[in-house]
């Protein structure tokens, strides 16, 4: 097991280098001209301005040169300067990462709660109306475009019924607390402002549900399949024979035995959550990495695009690695290939 973990850890730097290289290469085969993002339309015809801008942003160097410079800078934590915000990309990303993390973690909690509950119910009431309803709910969640669901729920709950807040992380009139962790729920509590904390939680509900629903579907499907298998085992019969209540049998005996695969699928759902966060953040004006990536992509802000893609790839790589290791540690019978 130690050897497996070691081997995975050794492979990490190479994969990261691969991510960096691919991200860099992809954004250099562009047909779009990044100059249009830096220089105003009128000045594009002015050769002096264009040359100065090219020199300043390093656009006049050859591709290998730019790659070496980029990787060298990256090692010192420098991802270049965003064409749009004119701030260092690394700083922008760090500033926006906590908002995305808060959303993703909340969505994961929503998805896991709904998914596990539905999976257990569906397995216990196999082939009944409850089972079919749970499966339909799950399939629906992975079929609905998150950006459309976000719009629809905002319209119904915020505009029509007024029971949930509109976009953003806090009420627009509220003064945000000083940024410490970047997690609005934590920062408001650290500022000792419970009312603001509740407002932050209030604002998290809709985006977390929108993002969590699809994951709930994947989780519930897996929990259902595993529960079906476990519920048919003999120790369940034994537990029942010994007079354990149904609730106890299902939760304490059966569900516990499906924890390993469940945790694994929750870990892997991270990729989906990062993907979905891009769109959810756009709808809910959430100032995270996703909306930053969208602005960068729309504005041909290549340093920002490369930066966000690399950070996203590395986060994804780390969560997958942790999930794999957790799976192996929790399940020593797994053969390591």
């Amino acid at each position, binding site marked *: 097991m130690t050897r497996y973990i070691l081997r995975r850890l050794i492979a990490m730097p190479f994969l990261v280098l691969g*991510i960096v290289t691919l991200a860099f290469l992809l954004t250099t085969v562009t047909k*779009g001209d990044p100059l249009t993002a830096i220089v105003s339309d009128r000045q594009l015809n002015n050769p002096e301005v264009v040359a100065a801008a090219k020199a300043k942003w390093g656009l006049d160097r050859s591709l290998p040169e730019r790659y070496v410079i980029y990787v060298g800078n990256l090692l010192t934590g420098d991802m270049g300067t965003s064409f749009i915000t004119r701030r260092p990309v690394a700083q922008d990303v760090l500033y926006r990462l906590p908002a995305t993390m808060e959303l993703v973690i909340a969505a994961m909690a929503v998805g896991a709660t709904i998914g596990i509950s539905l999976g257990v119910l569906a397995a216990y009431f196999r082939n009944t109306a409850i089972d079919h309803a749970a499966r339909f709910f799950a399939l629906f969640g992975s*079929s609905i475009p998150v950006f459309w669901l976000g719009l629809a729920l905002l319209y119904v709950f915020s505009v029509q019924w007024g029971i949930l807040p509109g976009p953003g992380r806090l009420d627009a009139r509220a003064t945000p607390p000083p940024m410490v962790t970047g997690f609005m729920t934590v920062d408001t509590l650290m500022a000792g402002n419970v009312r603001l904390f509740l407002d932050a939680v209030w604002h998290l509900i809709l985006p977390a549900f929108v993002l969590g629903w699809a994951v709930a579907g994947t989780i519930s499907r897996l929990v259902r399949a595993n529960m079906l298998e476990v519920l048919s085992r003999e120790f369940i019969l034994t537990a029942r024979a010994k007079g354990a209540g149904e609730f106890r049998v299902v939760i304490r005996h059966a569900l516990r035995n499906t924890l390993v695969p469940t945790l694994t699928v929750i870990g892997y759902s991270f990729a989906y959550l990062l993907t979905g966060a891009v769109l959810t953040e756009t709808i809910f004006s959430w100032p995270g990495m996703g909306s930053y990536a969208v602005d960068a992509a729309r504005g041909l802000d290549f340093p920002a695009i490369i930066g966000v893609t690399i950070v996203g790839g590395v986060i994804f790589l780390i969560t997958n690695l942790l999930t794999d290791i957790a799976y192996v540690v929790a399940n020593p019978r797994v053969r390591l290939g």
Partner: protein
Amino acid sequence: MTALSAPRMIRPRWLTLPLMVGVLLVLFWLLATVVAPLMTAHDPLDMVGRRLQPPSWDHLLGTDALGRDVLSRTLHGARHSIPIAVAVVILAVAIGASLGALAGFLGGLADTVIMRLVDVTLSFPPMLLAMAVAASLGPGLWNAAIAMVIVWWPVYARLMRAQVLEVREREHVEAAIASGATRTRVLTRHILPLCWTPVLISATMDLGQVILLAASLSFIGLGATPPTPEWGSMISDGAAQFYSWWVALGPGLAILTIVLGFNFIGDGLHDYFDPRSR
């Protein structure tokens, strides 16, 4: 058997209700792809009414900010989304399956190079990678399609490689090699024919997800360009006209129903091939 239960026997076990609904939904949208102009009263690009009219008998799903008929645009949207999704999946299968088969069959250096490329590509969250590529290539539905192929091919490469590795060890392959068949012949005649089924099933099931991804790219402005009636960009129009809810309703339902259709079919196929999960 009582007479009452007799009608139940007519339906084969694998033909479940979700599978039938899925097939119907997909068939409807395939039909729309072919004959959308015959199904609609208006041209999707014509300004046929006053702007932002709520649904009425003249315009069942209302009109958008330019006074175009939302229902016509929604039905015509199938002519963009579905061919793109099919093209993306076919290309991704062609590239992924070829490289995967080569990796599995040749082994050694070819295997290492191809599979490391697969690993790196799969290390990105799909949406972020697709966005980066689409942004680099510039807007346009076909550029978005290229971006999606780049994101999607590794999935089939992995699947195909696993298949080839498994089939390669079977006895009939050994027999073919022993009887002097060339390597090309062994691969194309004795191995590949046995590898296609899971790849094709998985490709069919992925169509819905590809439609979703394409719509997502268009939604953030990296796919279809105006005035193309593409579902993702129509929802983006709807977001800009937030209080006119009907602008985004049609395209949203369109994506939902076709993806749901493919997912129902996928679920049905899954149950059929893996009866334990029934």
